[in-house]
């Protein structure tokens, strides 16, 4: 056991802290899930990229710093501590990015990763459909071979696509073998949202922002070069991506450590209400530390070449439920002010999504039960 940071890691933290304190906007940007706010966030993303902070763990050739996972954790801690803006490029960088590194051809990596890092291409996720949510393998959107044109023709409908109305590209699963059942015969495609035949309709989420979209595809041509990981191999590629989403890379401990610190500050600012909420405040703070300690153990395992596999479901259950409890406690501290539109009420509404996206918590509990505990399948 050694829970200290090396001199190089401390130096990395210091660099990040200095840059963030000089560059993080003084007042919060408008929500990145609105059209105007998204544009403001893109400017921020491009500043991050120019200073090489947008994808710290990626190779330098693709715009990163070759940072270790440890350094990535440090950067995330500093990022949230500095109150820096939400990452509207997140779905590309944290979900598609890891899949491109694992399954992409060198040509795909060269062509796609630098533009993703620079926030030139903005990626939306195309998993769910009206008839396929938790049961992702039930998707019906299909891709038909167009041999003459050297590609595929995609038709169908994707939905709950985060920031789909503002993004330029979509990654998602389509059925390429209509005879195959369920997990078989699916292919992972990379689709331009300005291609002929694509219609995107944004719609409001619970918080009133146009953060959702449905994407209609009507005979949309996608060239062979935009198949990721091989025809009919889409399920394993997609599962690698959802693994990252549930686990560490989507929600680093830094996010909750900083939220817990803000909660403690709110409690100090409202001593008259804090008395009744003291246990909840302290427990939220404890749980944020517990999540960090859990991830330190996990990153050690990953650094030593072990895979965390189904354990990422435990991350997802823990952080998503912590996030709701933490925000509920903050709203209690605000008393009658809780109903106002503000950072805590917005954070609370967003926390309610956390137990749904990236695979509902019910799905995660089943994964924990069957794959970690070895309980029999239904």
């Amino acid at each position, binding site marked *: *056991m050694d829970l200290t940071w090396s001199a190089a890691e401390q130096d990395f933290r210091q660099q990040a802290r200095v840059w963030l304190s000089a560059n993080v906007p003084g007042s919060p940007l408008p929500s990145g899930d609105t059209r105007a706010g998204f544009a403001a966030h893109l400017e921020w993303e491009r500043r991050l990229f120019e200073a090489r902070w947008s994808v710290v763990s990626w190779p330098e050739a693709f715009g990163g710093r070759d940072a270790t996972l440890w350094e990535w954790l440090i950067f995330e801690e500093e990022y949230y501590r500095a109150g820096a803006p939400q990452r509207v490029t997140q779905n590309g960088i944290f979900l598609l990015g890891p899949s491109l590194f694992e399954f992409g051809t060198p040509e795909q990596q060269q062509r796609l990763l630098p533009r993703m890092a620079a926030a030139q291409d903005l990626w939306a996720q195309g998993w769910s459909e009206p008839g396929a949510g938790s049961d992702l393998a039930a998707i019906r959107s299909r891709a038909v071979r167009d041999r003459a044109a050297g590609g595929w023709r995609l038709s169908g409908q994707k939905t709950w696509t985060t920031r789909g109305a503002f993004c330029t590209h979509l990654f998602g699963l389509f059925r390429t073998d209509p005879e195959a059942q369920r997990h078989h015969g699916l292919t992972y495609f990379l689709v331009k949202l300005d291609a002929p035949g694509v219609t995107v309709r944004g719609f409001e989420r619970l918080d009133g922002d146009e953060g959702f979209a449905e994407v209609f595809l009507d005979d949309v041509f996608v060239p062979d070069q935009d198949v990721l990981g091989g025809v009919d191999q889409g399920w394993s590629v997609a599962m690698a991506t959802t693994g990252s989403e549930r686990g560490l890379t989507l929600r680093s401990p830094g996010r909750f450590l900083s939220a817990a610190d803000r909660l403690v500050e709110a409690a100090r600012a409202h001593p008259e209400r804090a008395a009744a909420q003291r246990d909840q405040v302290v427990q939220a703070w404890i749980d944020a530390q517990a999540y960090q300690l859990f991830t330190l153990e996990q990153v050690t395992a990953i650094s030593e070449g072990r895979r965390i596999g189904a354990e990422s479901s435990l991350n997802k259950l823990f952080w998503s439920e912590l996030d709701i409890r933490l925000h509920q406690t903050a709203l209690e501290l605000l008393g009658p002010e809780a109903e106002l539109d503000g950072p805590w009420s917005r954070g609370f509404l967003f926390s309610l999504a956390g137990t749904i996206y990236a695979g509902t918590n019910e799905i995660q509990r089943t994964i924990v039960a069957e794959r970690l505990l070895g309980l029999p399948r*239904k």
Partner: protein
Amino acid sequence: MRFRIAEDDAALAAAAAGLLAKEVTPQEIRAGWPGGSAGRVDAAWRRLAELGALGTLVPEAADGLGLGLGLDENALAPLLFELGRSGLPVPAAESIAVGAPLLAAAGSPLLAEVLSARLLLTAALDGSGPVPFGQRADLLVLEAGAQLRLYRRDELELEPVAAVDGSRALARLRRPPDGGGVLLAEGPIAVDRARQRGVLGTAALLVGLCERMLDLTVDYVRQRRQYGAPIGSFQAVQHALAGAAGAVRFARPAVLAAAWSQASGEPAAAVATSLAKVLASDAGRLVARTAIQCHGAIGYTTEYDLHLYAKRAWALAAAWGGPADHRELIARELQLTRVG
């Protein structure tokens, strides 16, 4: 940064695990209950002593017999995971984590007797509460003022008290000791250090107990059939157990981190330790309750073994400060002051 149990520490825990798996069946736990033959418990404890486990935190050669292993809290936590898992009714935290290193530091001539398990040592630092294993211990470390003193049982007036976990052999002091005893350590720093080790040891025992209860329950729900299917295939049962498993899985690294903080003399060790105890205690209560519920009526009997572990979990959740006590301690560190 490396969050992994060191090889030497893991080796000690593995050796203890192997021994305990052989020596401690539910029969040994039941032997620690009133009317049982405590000799079976003592025999297993002696085997652990032969392994050197009782001297984990004792410097090598401090006892003159070479029973000290000279390890630190990083070794203590994994060892006590295994002792907790075994359910052996012994003062593991009180003796290995708290008492033995105090006797060693004070140069007590009784250390060798303790490390070889000829004398049973326990500790109680909170003054008013019942003394764990007070009915069986030969030697007791008690807090008196800002001192930690070692008493022989004949220097104290101890009366047995009944407990939910009968194997805890609780006793209460009829009155505070009137003189006597031998000074082991004094001053708030020394007392805090000893207390933190007791808290840490108890949290580690809880993690092991939780893992044992989970294993028992997973085995049961895989076999037990209702409506023509194993009940472990039902979502309600699966999800309850997933929640319980998560609580343990998050408590475990917190205990290891607290051990590291103590061993490294970190200023944040007190908070890290309280944090670990909150998580381990809450996990203990959740897992015990979930395990009983998933078993159904058989879980609500004393013929079946689950109660031996569940009752221990309830006892340890409250011992060395319950979750509310430790949240309070952290609240003070976070400067969340009480109003009114």
